[in-house]
């Protein structure tokens, strides 16, 4: 996946101090504790909820007092009172990135995590674009990899300036001073200066251009399971997510958009709705209606009374089967080539055996537990938007575009995110909120119901992939062909669209860099864009393609009569990192130990996001086809584990997220409408289904890999391969159909 490059910055150096926003305000530092939700309130009088509720007099807020202190770059603010605020360029959506990024800065700045506070960065590509995605975007498991060097540099540069300032004051060589926990010490005489004492002098120091960074053996914080900085307020109700923001005078609304993508609003009969107590407004835009009330319940009760007439438009007849058939019926001749290595046709001619299969993947919703919401106030001088987003700059530009404003007139106040998984990489719900809010004078929070959320997502597209391999006499693959079929997600992120004939690197993600040593390879992509809205979903192209490739590798091993682990190891014998994680996982899972009939283990391996990962799932399948998860083992080579506890948490959660989809998730369309509504018919895995999960970390490189999505990528193929081991049934369609297993088990 390549995100859109909106502001290209080559490399990533230290930031020019002249280029700083008036960022952190002194007021944020008053209350102490975590300041997650209070950053960058811009010109608005808005308050985040727990300040508002907590009884702080808004008059105490001096809008115009800026920050006076040490601001060496976009990421660090140190006040005279010794308070340290770190500005987070990535969005926190549960992956622990506020902690990980803080650890990178704090390691070199020589402060403890207990001494810092963090705030989300405002939209500013010049300051906060990250070097992999080249934009201020949180996604594709890039944040830790991207900021690994820049944030340590930022911390080291700031520390150097503070130490140099102390050295000048004491008239000593800076190299003779020591520094720890925000205090500079002169070991010769025991004198100390706190960072807060040095902010003015340090601000006059030159920004060092080349700062030495610590080597791995010098790390004090990186590599430790340091407590997360965002979690204390997540266990006591004080954490503020987008949906929790409260602005003085705010009303609360809910939205009903056209049930068919591309449909239009014809008319609304709101006679009954307007009689509901507490209703404030019924607002219309081209394809949606919002009901606004004094509280959500008034809005929701009134929305239930609306009689809306829609024009369903061109997609009124769309069904899931049509979308699958559209791909199946498109010949592969016109496919866009992605990999051409050797000659698969020639190799197949001399092969001992050819294996073919087709795999089908469904539409998936993200179903983040925090439903889509936006709080927004449109005023004469501009707009304030409180929202949790993975793309604050895109949100700013989109709202500005929709309301015909300059981007700087749109102030995005990013919030904690109650689940992202790719859902908050798109901004259409924020634009929708802006179009409604522009019609009223009050600030409004628009919350989608769960039903609205599930039925108006940007869905992971349907894929239908035709895959084949030619095996030699030993059963090893000599040729590999994968005709990937489906829509282009990248297309929806490019303002002018992805041109016909161009390759969507996400659609073929993972298959273009196959780890297995196969001499002849052909990979291409049959592009069939669906008429529905599609988007990135956790694990992106790798989740889709690793399901196909890793399931198929198991088919090849079976055809060769070989053990799936041994088969993979033979094809990876020149890849020490892959070999290490597979052997570790197999060892810990007891791969060689026999299981009773009806039970089986499955493995999947992939190397994506710079992190080789092996996952082994053990299941049993009963006579009714019910799949019981028995044990999960994962081994990852993360390169450098910045916070090993977070690495483990991401693996555990990522795998479970993927298993939930593999077992249950299937968005279907009929008459252009999504047939699922809520968590009863868009089911998710629950605690009673979860077996023990063991995770193991290898550190086999000098830099961290990405991991937010890796576990999800591994889950479905490892599960499918385990089902095959348990039953002999190869399921090539997601989610796994238990009725097929029941039939097969009954047939014996």
């Amino acid at each position, binding site marked *: 996946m390549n995100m859109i490059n909106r502001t290209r910055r080559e490399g990533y150096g230290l930031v020019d101090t002249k280029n700083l926003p008036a960022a952190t305000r002194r007021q944020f530092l008053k209350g102490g504790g975590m300041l997650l939700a209070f950053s960058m309130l811009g010109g608005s009088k808005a308050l985040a*909820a*727990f300040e*508002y*509720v907590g009884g702080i007099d808004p008059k105490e807020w001096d809008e115009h007092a800026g920050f006076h202190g040490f601001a060496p770059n976009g990421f660090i603010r140190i006040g005279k009172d010794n308070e340290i605020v770190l500005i987070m360029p990535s969005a926190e959506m*549960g*992956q*622990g990135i506020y902690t990980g990024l803080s650890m990178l800065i704090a390691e070199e700045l020589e402060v403890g995590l207990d001494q810092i506070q963090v705030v989300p960065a405002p939209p500013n590509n010049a300051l906060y674009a990250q070097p992999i995605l080249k934009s201020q975007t949180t996604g594709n498991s890039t944040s830790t990899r991207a900021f690994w060097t820049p944030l340590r540099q930022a911390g080291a540069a700031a520390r150097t300036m503070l130490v140099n300032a102390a050295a000048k004051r004491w008239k000593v060589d800076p190299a003779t001073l020591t520094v720890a926990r925000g205090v500079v010490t002169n070991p010769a005489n025991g004198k100390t200066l706190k960072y807060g004492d040095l902010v003015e002098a340090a601000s006059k120091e030159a920004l060092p251009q080349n700062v030495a960074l610590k080597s791995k053996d010098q790390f004090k914080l990186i590599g430790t*399971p340091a*407590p997360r900085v*965002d*979690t*204390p307020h*997540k*266990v*006591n*109700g*004080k*954490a*503020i*997510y987008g*949906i929790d923001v*409260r602005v003085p005078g705010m009303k609360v609304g809910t939205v009903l958009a056209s049930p068919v993508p591309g449909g239009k609003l014809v008319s609304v009969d709101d006679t009954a709705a307007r009689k509901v*107590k507490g209703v404030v407004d019924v607002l219309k835009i081209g394809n949606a209606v919002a009901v606004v009330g004094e*509280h*959500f*319940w*008034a809005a929701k*009760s009134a929305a239930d009374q609306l009689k809306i007439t829609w024009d369903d438009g061109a997609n009124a007849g769309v069904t899931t089967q049509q979308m699958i058939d559209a791909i199946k019926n498109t010949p592969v001749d016109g496919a866009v080539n992605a990999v051409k290595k050797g000659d698969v046709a020639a190799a197949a001619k001399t092969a001992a055996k050819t294996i073919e299969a087709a795999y089908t993947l469904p539409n998936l919703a993200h*179903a*983040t*537990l925090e*439903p889509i919401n936006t709080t927004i106030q449109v005023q004469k001088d501009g707009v304030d938007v409180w929202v949790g987003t993975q793309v604050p700059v895109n949100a700013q530009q989109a709202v500005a575009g929709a309301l015909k404003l300059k981007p700087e007139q749109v102030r995005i106040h990013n919030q*904690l*995110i*109650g*689940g*992202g998984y790719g859902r908050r990489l798109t901004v259409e719900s924020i634009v929708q909120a802006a179009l409604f809010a522009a019609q009223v004078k009050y600030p409004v929070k628009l*919350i989608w*119901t*769960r039903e609205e959320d599930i039925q108006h997502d940007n869905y992971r597209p349907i894929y239908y992939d035709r895959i084949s391999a030619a095996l030699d006499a030993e059963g090893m693959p000599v040729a590999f062909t994968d005709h990937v079929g489906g829509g282009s997600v990248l297309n929806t992120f490019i303002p002018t669209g992805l041109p016909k004939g161009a390759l969507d690197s996400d659609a073929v993600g993972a298959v273009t860099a196959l780890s297995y040593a196969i001499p002849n390879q052909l990979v291409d992509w049959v592009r069939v864009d669906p008429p529905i809205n599609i988007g990135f979903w956790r694990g992106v192209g790798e989740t889709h393609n690793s399901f196909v490739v890793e399931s198929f590798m198991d088919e090849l091993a079976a055809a060769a009569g070989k053990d799936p682990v041994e088969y993979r190891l033979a094809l990876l014998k020149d890849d020490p990192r892959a070999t290490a994680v597979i052997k570790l996982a197999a060892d810990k899972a007891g791969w060689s130990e026999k299981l009773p009939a009806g039970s089986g283990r499955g493995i999947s391996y992939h190397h994506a996001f710079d992190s080789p990962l092996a996952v082994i799932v053990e299941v049993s399948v009963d006579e009714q086809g019910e799949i019981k998860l028995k044990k999960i083992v994962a081994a990852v080579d993360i390169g450098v584990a910045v916070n090993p*506890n*977070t690495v483990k*948490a991401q693996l*555990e*959660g*990522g*795998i*479970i*997220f993927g298993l*939930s989809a593999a077992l249950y998730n299937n968005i279907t369309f009929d008459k252009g409408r999504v047939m699922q509504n*809520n*968590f*009863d018919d868009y089911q*998710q895995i*629950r*605690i*009673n289904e*979860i077996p*023990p*999960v063991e995770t193991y970390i290898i550190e086999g490189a000098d830099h961290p890999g990405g991991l937010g999505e890796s576990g999800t990528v591994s889950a479905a193929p490892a599960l499918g391969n385990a089902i095959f081991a348990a039953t002999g049934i190869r399921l090539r369609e997601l989610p796994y159909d238990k009725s097929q297993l029941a039939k097969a088990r009954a047939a014996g």
Partner: protein
Amino acid sequence: MYTLSINGKEHKVDVPDDMPLLWVLRDVLGMTGTKFGCGAGLCGACTVHLDGVAVRGCQTAVADVGKQKITTIEGIGDTEIGKKVQKAWLDLEVVQCGYCQSGQIMSATSLLAKNPNPTDADIDEAMQGNLCRCGTYVRIREGIKQAATA
């Protein structure tokens, strides 16, 4: 007009009879720790206690609360068990996005109040109404066990 006892304090609210407690807490009283996830009693994000028993705030009409004492995530740390659960959650780093965790903690606290030493099966039964999309279930189970022995 209803008088509600929430976390030991009385609150007077003038709201419709059928208004779910969830929205009274969030939109009228500004107590946003209790979360909206599904509105249909399917996810457990809105779990609060009525006289110590876990209920879904989105399915509890304000008119049905009566004199029962309401405890929310904002007040659970004032109870002995709630405090232990919160500590276990932090010690084990249970939380990821955290959006479901108010509800998880309320359900876990209610379980431990009734059953100080729950088995895995007890935990599964008490907690299966609480969804977590981040997949923190393994640590939730460990967290309950740690709180039970703390």
